[in-house]
């Protein structure tokens, strides 16, 4: 970028603190994709509607296209790659494979983060509550049915794990 990098910020991305010099109008999405080494954060609409660029900012889901990079200064950002160690799958990812919750895969990173956040707060959510929870993440391939199958399976696994503790 030739624009001035007038602001120095520190963002912890998937547990790794990193410093950046950014212009005031740079979005968090652009920062993550271009300088942050996070191509897994996808651009879908750039207007905050599709949810494709969802990341967790200090644990809360945001559309990264609507957040300025400078607003993330001092924050933790979690992308889909922060859900499991490299080369491993967590149970939610495994359930998405098992139930074919992914087709083209473009909405998947954002979808997984929204679901992760929601089930942490609502571990017993039923299917209709889960349907509402993912309403901000558009998917054009699956019709959502298999996504909800995957999410319910994950909820059950997760609950089983908690009960077993």
């Amino acid at each position, binding site marked *: 970028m030739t624009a001035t990098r007038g602001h120095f910020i520190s963002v912890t991305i998937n547990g790794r603190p990193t410093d950046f010099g950014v212009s005031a109008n740079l979005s968090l999405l652009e920062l993550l994709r271009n300088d942050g080494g996070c191509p897994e954060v996808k651009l879908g609409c750039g207007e905050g509607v599709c949810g494709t660029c969802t990341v967790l900012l200090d644990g809360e889901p945001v559309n990264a296209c609507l957040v300025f990079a400078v607003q993330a200064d001092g924050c933790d950002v979690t992308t889909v790659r922060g859900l499991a160690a490299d080369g491993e799958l967590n149970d939610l990812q495994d359930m998405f494979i098992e139930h074919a919750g992914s087709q*083209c895969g473009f909405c998947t990173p954002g979808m997984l983060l929204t679901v992760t956040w929601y089930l942490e707060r609502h571990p017993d959510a039923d299917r209709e509550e889960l349907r509402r929870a993912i309403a901000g993440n558009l998917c054009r391939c699956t019709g959502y049915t298999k996504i909800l199958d995957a999410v319910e399976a994950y909820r059950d696994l997760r609950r089983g794990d908690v009960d077993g503790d």
Partner: protein
Amino acid sequence: MATDTHTSKLISLLSDAEARDTPVTTPAPPAPPRPAPARRPNGRTSPVPHRDFLEKVTGTLPYADDWSFAGILHGVVVRARVPCARIAGIDVSAARAVPGVRAVLTAADIPHNAISEEASGLGIEQTVQPVLAGERIRYDGEPVACIAAESMVAAVEAAGLVDVEYEDDAGVFTIDEALAEGAPSVHPGGNTYVTYNSSIGDVDAAMARADHIIEETYQTPRVDHAYLEPESGVGWIDSDGVVTLRVSTQVIEHARALAEILELPHSRVRVIAAYMGGGFGGKEDMTVEPYLAALVWKTRRPVRMVWERQDSLLARQKRHPFRMHYRTGVTNDGTIVAQDIKILGDAGAYPLLSSRVLFAGGVNSTGPYKCLDARMQSTAVFTNTVPTSAFRGFGAMQVVFGYESQMDLIAERLGLSREAVRERNFVAQGDIRVTGEPIEMGCGTRECMHRALEELGELSQPVNGGKVGRGFACSMQPYGRSMFFTDRASAWIGLEQDGTMVIRAGVTDLGAGQAASLANIAGEILGVTVDRTSVHIGDSHLTPLTGGTFATRQLYMSGNATVKVATALRDKLAPVAADLLGCEESELEWINNLVGVTGDRARSVTMAELSRTAENRDVMPYCHETFHAQAGEFNPETGQGQTYPDYTHGCHAADVEVDMRTGEVRILKYVAVHDVGRAIDLQRVEGQIQGAAAQGIGYAMSEEMETEGGVLHSNLFANYLIPTSLDLPDLKAIGLEVHLGKGPFGARGIGEPPIGPCGPALASAIHDAIGIRMLRLPMVPERVLAAIRAGRDHSVPGPAKQDA
């Protein structure tokens, strides 16, 4: 093993493949055994996931915009924001002066400024579409310049400084305006781009004999594909001076068109297709490719281009709005005796694939119903609006709304049930279509209808105090390209020395598992598991060409090519294996990365051993083969001939609740049933059915690109409403296996057909609930409420139906 050995299973599969040209007079061949599903190592029953699934859930799959190069330039397209004008001049001096700008190209800079393809396959005269408009603007959003700069900021700044001087020009923005006497022409030669006529029998005489004539006009909207991945890619000049693009595209064969635009030899342009974040036909025509190629060629630098969502909505091609006039003659018992159908499709400002779409719409307009006195006419009309082209269903889906609404009207007029009228008229194998050709393969529409209605069970209860109704609609949609294209696809398979398998095929992967299905098919024949298979796809220079992924053709085409090449390789290696094992070739069993002797578990060799031994004996462990689709001829003058190799039949059924105060329609239950012939991977089949149904429901209920005077109003995701999770119920998808198709193992294509029945099924349900028939899609609350307030049935003369 059971008495039925694996080898003999494969032989029966092959004999089925060879018997695909079964004449209609012979019964369909017996069902081949289903391919054995692979097991996951953890013991779960679903198939071993192909790598693409792992990469998608971990976010590591490199899509078109996830690649970069050191020193890459940023490309943008500059678009006209008037729908119709003459260009008096373009001044790019200020844009070129912006620091960091490396190229500003206009029409004069494009060596051969034409996107040319004889798209119809039937010799329709070409209408030239410029890469960059230089003389006239024909639609809002038409590209006039493209820019490459060191930064996105500089590129966008320069785009704002491109100064185009426009002179007002008269335009036509609707089909009616375009066809009016003395209307301005979008292109020389008038606004009718192409008309197809087909007829059989004597329609006028048959119509005169009919007891009733049911006549109605139906309208469908202009809609956007709205895949989540925007049009994107990177381009660079590779070694040997090859202009190389890695883009999100359904068709790598566009490399040839790009070479012609740049006036380069075909061998100097290479297109690599990344895995797509959805395509649905919207990446079948070129999107970023010509602009990227021109900027790379001009700057000799790598260039990246991503279209903004708003540009994509504004100016990338849409689905044709159709206006369909149906006149159907029936006897008192509900038998259709005459059909007279006229279809007008809005092609927008340039042809693209309109000739094929209107062809598909016309020849499929009678649906799964027999009629020996039928006539159809379909016409593509130019207007000064965004061009329309391919979109899942491709003309054959719009007409489902026409023919299924007609069937409901017939039932209503005659006081028969909707099922009974359909039962009486369903086509069967051997019946003659409007094009004079017989239907070759079995037709399972009836079975799909019964299953769909049975699956819905008792009528749903209202959840919000509205009126509940049930509807359904059947369809018969083609898969595979029109037969006069003499379609073909090639594939290459080789075994590495460690026994792993490599498949090369030029197929592009839309996200529907096109690559994975090739691994499954080859694995079924050679016994190599998916985790030991690599599939290289979508490279116009390095993979054998298969033709693009469209027309629900890849399973049929590259699937069959894979069957053919895998079989050839197995036959080539069989003598070596038999020699190693001391058995007859007919005793060999290819399974789980081993070649063994059937019935003798102790005797086997690994694929690695076989591969190395074969190579040592100079039997090279690889093969290349080409599959040729069934070819046919069609005469556009007479409208008679062969159209499509085969069809996929289906029925969707739904319960809806209509809120009488707001006009909102809530879908309570939805079932989609299709005869898939043979499901290669049932889970992916269900996924295709559900996804197409969701897209069809959006088409039916909420999606419409609204234009006014050629200016598009729906240019944001915020006002172009595709279904969210809250707009859809669970979609029950059922893949029946009633009649074998022409795909590998008897499969039928499923990518497109399930998008057709949604609109008419929901319109039927709304009518059942409130006695009002919606004749126009989408059935948004405003339209439903207006119809309720008008207080009457809009379609049928006489008193409105009072209740469900």
